[in-house]
């Protein structure tokens, strides 16, 4: 199975203390300074939407957001464009892009109050219902590939994969680790 359009969300550790309005300034600066790879277009403020995408950084090939979907703040990276290579390449690209944005935010908000992302949980989903319908068959095909990819960084048998409860949701898994992982190792 080909898994394109990988989305990753890394959750904020505990209650977020940062005023989400501040992400607007940071994302604009990222565009201005070309901080991230790829073409970044604009910033959209969705803070008015309850449990919504919060503040979005719209890109040509990918979107980033500090989002509050599910009433939990986190950094979401969502790959829109097709990416050549293997599934493993696509998992890696999404996780590394999300991790890089998290690190940048952590270093930007390193004090008063600081912003810190958790190191024991993230979501990884496939934003394409035709390629990856939310079924047991997809899960059966996906699990070994993701496990093989994650094991070197998270440790063999040291993490769990839980699919979403709602069958209508995008296919994906919530990944929980026994030990904190290193963002740079993803």
């Amino acid at each position, binding site marked *: 199975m080909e898994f394109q359009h990988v989305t990753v969300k890394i959750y904020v550790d505990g209650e977020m203390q940062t005023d989400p309005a501040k992400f607007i300034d940071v994302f604009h600066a990222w565009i201005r300074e070309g901080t991230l790879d790829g073409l970044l277009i604009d910033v959209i403020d969705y803070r008015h939407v309850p449990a919504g995408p919060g503040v979005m950084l719209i890109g040509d090939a990918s979107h980033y957001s500090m989002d509050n979907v599910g009433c939990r703040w986190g950094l979401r990276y969502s790959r829109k464009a097709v990416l050549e290579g293997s599934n493993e390449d696509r998992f890696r690209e999404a996780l590394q892009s999300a991790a890089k944005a998290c690190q940048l935010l952590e270093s930007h908000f390193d004090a008063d109050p600081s912003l810190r992302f958790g190191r024991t949980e993230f979501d990884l989903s496939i*934003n394409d*219902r035709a*390629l990856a319908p939310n079924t047991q068959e997809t899960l059966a095909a996906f699990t070994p590939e993701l496990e093989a990819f994650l094991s070197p960084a998270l440790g063999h048998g040291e993490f769990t994969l839980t699919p979403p409860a709602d069958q209508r949701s995008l296919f994906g898994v919530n990944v929980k680790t026994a030990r904190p992982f290193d963002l740079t190792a993803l």
Partner: protein
Amino acid sequence: MKASNRLWEQRLEGHLPEQLAQEISTFETEIELRRQGKVDERIFAETRLRRGAYGQRYDNGQRHDGSQTRQLAYDTSKNTKGPNTVWDAPGMMRIKIPYGGMTPEQMEVMAELAEEYSDNIAHVTTRQDFQLHFIHLEDTPTLMRRLAAVGITTREACGNSVRNVTGCPYSGVCPDEAFDVTPYADALTQFLLGHPDVQNFGRKFKPSFSGCTQHACGLAAMHDMGMIAATREVDGQVERGFKIVVGGGLGAVPHQAKVFAEFLPVEELLPIAQAMSRVFARHGEKKNRSKARIKFLIKTWGIDKFKETVLKERQKLPNDPRWTEYLNSVDDGKETPLNPPGELPPINGSERLARWLKTNIRAQRQAGYVTATVALPLGDMTSDQLRSLADIARQFTNGTIRTTVEQNIVIRWVSKKDIPALFDALDKAGLGEPGASNILDIVACPGTDTCKLGISSSRGLAAELRSRLAGKCFELDEAIQGLHVKISGCFNSCGQHHISDIGFYGVSRNIQSFQVPHFQVVLGGQWEENAGSYGLPIVAIPSKRIPDALDRIIDHYMKLREKGESFQLFINRVGKAQIRQLLDDLKTMPDHDAEPSFYADWADPREYSTGDIGKGECAGEVVSAFEFAMTDAERMVFDAQTVLDSGEAQKAGTESYSAMLKAAKAIVMIEYDDITDDPDEIIEEFQERYFDTKVFFDPFAGGKFANYLFAAHDSAGTPFTEESARHLIEEAHLFIEAVHSCYNRIRSKSAS
């Protein structure tokens, strides 16, 4: 672009209505032709607009980052998708929802599309449509297929066409309506969609239905064609009809609609709409798009001449059974409740629920039932929320949902006994916001967020005002709570600022050699009585001082209001000059160095600039019916070539012949717009008008290319071989080129 576009095409094959499937494939071919540079960008732009694929801010490939305008590094080796519009730049998809009526299944698909192709937000517009942003052009056919599979079309959602037919979201359940307008709105939608008489407008045409005169749910007075339900008694029988108003509209210069008919029997609704379309297509302005709406034709002619011309046109129309067929079933298929009627159980304690009950519940004409409003902040909701709403609609009703012109969604047929449980379910999904239709429920157009024409941030301002009002809204006087606030990002009025109690629209000013975002304050508009009157701008205030301006206006109203005096009457009594004076000092700006934030817009730290304003696509390019038909003919020859390559000679030959007929019809239409699709008639008219007169004759080849057409017509029905199909494709190419040349000769002759 999505990796799964082909998969969806295969998966949905045979599951779409045939006509829609064909239209979408045609659009896909048009995209391919434009990609190869074989269709003019102007024609392609109008083509995609008529399919609902709209442009978005920054799609010209540049953006001001606060200090300078920078090029966005799109792949510019590709063609454009319209004048000054980069192929790869994401755009907006507008999805028509006639009279706002949706099913839970449709909501689920909308949720999937918002998630997979857009930014996880589905946006409800002020004309009951949905809009999804940041969509790539190559993905649009897949979106269209997935929508078509649940009975939704994006056809004619934008461009110079008949836009979404809007209607009261309370039709059929409203205590004040004359009758349920839903089946009539539906019939008009189906009848005009793709109708040949609505393909040659100079601008858009917006119809709307209202069930009564007094409320604002249908906003008939601000539409090109507004229908207000009415009844009369004739010989003891109650007859249904509509008061028809025409030529209303907001935009830069708002026009109140004029009465076309005090009572038009329902049997005449569709033929009159058709006749009106023909008159608009024939006589409406085509060159100057700022004067091309039907309101300008009515202004130039006067309502009497307009009416006379439409009625004459009506008399000439050949009977169409569709005009009245639907009338036999207008009372069939009425919505039914899921649960029996009931009474509201005692409410204990919850202040939030009490507020929600006050603002978000409206009694239905059917005892024991209510309609509940889901107030969407700025018309936005997430995919998860849409799915939850679909579940809730199924749980409490038979899926009876409609979008509203206030960018909300209503759930109809809720049994009163279910109200607390419904509220709990909505609240759990983040949809239990109180304050529907009150001062908190601010309407805003996309503005500088995504609109190419946006001058100031209407959504940024709306979000700011909402967050300031949220804490205190329910402590304010009832008269204040009931005010309507509407915001547009520019004078074009998509946020409907003219018909609010307090409206704002974006402008810019130069201060201390800096550009500064401002909003004009518009007062005196009337929301009720179907948008009964329009407000006027009184003063432009810097964006960052608008919250202060709003506070002052509200305080002033509270202090000086006479008992029971509405805001509109209050403004008329105290006069706009007084309010202007009240706000005058807010015009002053702090120094740039002291308060740089005043020189930026809401929720946008970039130093403000108008450099990102582009050319809008609201109107689309004025592309003549001739150009459209010719593009179609060219596309058909392209298709013929493709099918021949896959070995289908018969299909290729037939398609080439059809392309030649299409081109011949296009040139006949210049002189005779009632030409039908009958091949014999096309050939006869073409021969008489262009061949016998030698108008078509090429200076060198004479009538040679026309003879290709005649020969193809004579041998129609003869089986094609691979060779004969190939020849006909060549001849079709040459004939189409000859039609273009002929058209150019006619145009240059008439110009000289």
